[in-house]
């Protein structure tokens, strides 16, 4: 199978859907050359760097019968548009009693690990999970980003795709044929029997690395990548934890009130699952600090393979 990058796969999803549906519009602060060349400057518009304006414009376009892709680039820039995102995009379907549909795809990058410092590195998906009305994607492979964005571009709700910055250039197999990945279906990246590791975003790869090392020591871990946070595939997670009896959740977002906390809570508060736990569920998260610039400090602040191995061994001990 051919191999293409994560970013190319995302662009392909948009191109395919824009060809099928002329009532589609792309808004972004940077010129997406390929898209504008194919679909013209009317539908593919470069915006001023004024995030609230085009996040809001997407809502007006949606309410007027157009499907919009708005690329905010980084999640830290997305904060500039929180009024339109949180007060309007998320609530407008509900607040107006479901009388209109708002098909919008918002894209932005997340994560740390590239010395971007605090204002160019963050993983704020839990904040968005806390405002009902948005669907939330967290794809980690070229195959998944294409299939999930294809589904997002047929979805009649605002969808936020959080895309790990460091994975943008990553290559992986993507078929030529059209395919869709449904929301709410986790991917079991590696099967195992001793510990369930639910890993988010780039941490999937750190967890897979940890799995290989741990296998040499006779510890078998199952790595689950939820792929979408809203809706979240609770069943796959719970089924796995019931099988292994142990859970470690890994996320580079800050620990406090994170998605990892939600995943721990939903498993620990499930009576059938709680009864099968062999040890206290654990989490490996980013420290509760803004992302520091200098590499030794940044590395210290976010999870990695070694920290995951340590947490898995702790889970195995008690």
């Amino acid at each position, binding site marked *: 199978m051919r191999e293409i990058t994560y970013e190319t796969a995302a662009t392909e999803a948009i191109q395919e859907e824009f060809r099928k549906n002329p009532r589609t*519009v792309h808004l972004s602060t940077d010129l997406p050359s390929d898209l504008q060349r194919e679909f013209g400057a*009317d*539908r593919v*518009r470069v*915006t*001023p760097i*004024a995030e*609230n*304006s*085009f*996040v*809001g*414009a*997407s*809502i*007006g*376009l*949606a*309410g*007027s*019968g*157009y499907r*919009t892709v708005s690329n905010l680039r980084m999640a830290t820039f997305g904060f500039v548009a929180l*009024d*339109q995102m949180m*007060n*309007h995009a998320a609530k*407008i*379907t*509900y*607040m*107006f*009693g*479901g*009388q*209109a*549909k*708002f098909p919008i795809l918002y894209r932005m990058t997340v994560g740390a690990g590239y010395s971007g410092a605090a204002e160019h590195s963050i993983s704020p998906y839990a904040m968005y999970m806390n405002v*009902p*009305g948005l*669907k939330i994607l967290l794809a980690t492979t070229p195959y998944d980003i294409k299939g999930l964005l294809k589904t997002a571009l047929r979805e*009649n*709700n605002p969808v936020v795709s959080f895309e790990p910055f460091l994975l943008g250039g990553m290559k992986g197999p993507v078929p030529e044929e059209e395919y869709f990945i449904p929301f709410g279906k986790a991917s079991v990246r590696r099967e195992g029997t001793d510990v369930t590791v639910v890993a988010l975003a780039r941490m999937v790869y750190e967890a897979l690395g940890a799995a290989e090392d741990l296998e040499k020591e006779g510890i078998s871990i199952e790595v689950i990548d939820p792929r979408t946070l809203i809706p979240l595939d609770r069943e796959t997670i719970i089924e796995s934890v019931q099988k292994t009896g142990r859970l470690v959740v890994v996320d580079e977002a800050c620990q406090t009130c994170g998605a990892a906390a939600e995943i721990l809570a939903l498993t620990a508060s499930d009576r059938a699952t709680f009864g099968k736990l062999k040890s206290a569920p654990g989490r490996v998260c980013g420290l509760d600090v803004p992302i520091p610039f200098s590499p030794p400090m940044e590395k210290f602040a976010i999870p990695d393979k070694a920290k995951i191995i340590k947490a898995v061994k702790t889970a195995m001990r008690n």
Partner: protein
Amino acid sequence: MDLSRNTLIDLYATMLTIRRFEERVAAEVYAGKVPGFVHSYIGEEAIAAGVCVHMDRQDRIVSHHRGHGHCIAKGADMKRMMAEIYGKKTGYCKGKGGSMHIADFSIGMLGADGIVGAGLPIATGAAMAAQLDRKGAIAAVFFGDGACNEGEFHEALNLASIWKLPLLFVCENNGYGVNTSAEYAMGAKDITRMPEAYHIANRSIYGNDVELVYEAAAEAIARLRKGDGPYFLECKTYRWHKHFLSNALEDLRPSEELEAWKQKCPVAAFQKKLLDRKILTASEAEQIDQKILAQVEEAHAFAMESPYPQPQDALEDVYSI
């Protein structure tokens, strides 16, 4: 501009409908019968009436927290409005929005927002849709002087300007954001200096004269339909009630200022003109009023007879299917 008798009477009836609807709502609010916050449009009726009369269903508007007048002028059903204000299941938003969030997408009323200035970016999207549709449709956004100090206002003006969007900015300058005067809060002082800075055609008018609003909006909308880019219309007016209807909220505006503006009532002034010009007789005016009062009564009765939503209806409509 010479308006036909029908147009004049339509404008009068729209203004009076808004007035009677708002009077009834205010009485119900002060009787403690309406949940939540209600922002009254009384005193500003000429603006919604004079602007919306030029639009049809394919033209879209975005409103704000003081939005009942825009809904009525755009052709919304008062029964479903009243039901929404009471939180009834038959309301426009099935009781999920209330007074501040009435919308009717079927008539191009894209909703009222409770966040000052937030409707402006949304309206740029509606205008962009009209531009892409190439059918000569336009969008209009209503907002107050308070919104002009928000970043979203400036972002929307800028976007409309660079993309030449068919968007009519209608600033209902009532002089105050809650109790804070525009004189204090607005560095630009003269609002039209802001659209001027963005190269947006603009005009400032006395907003309580519905014929003047009609004529200015006609000119602006004709330009929009030709593709000449956005237009900014400032309408100077005054609200008669407090920011929202509440005994607990203070009104810090000078009482003599309020009294002076009440003397400039847009509805009474227009009625007098119509009577003086013999467009209407006193008995015709009375007939129009009685008809409107009956419609408002019917809307109220509909709201009263309508059921509340079931509590578990709260779980519906978070997402569209």
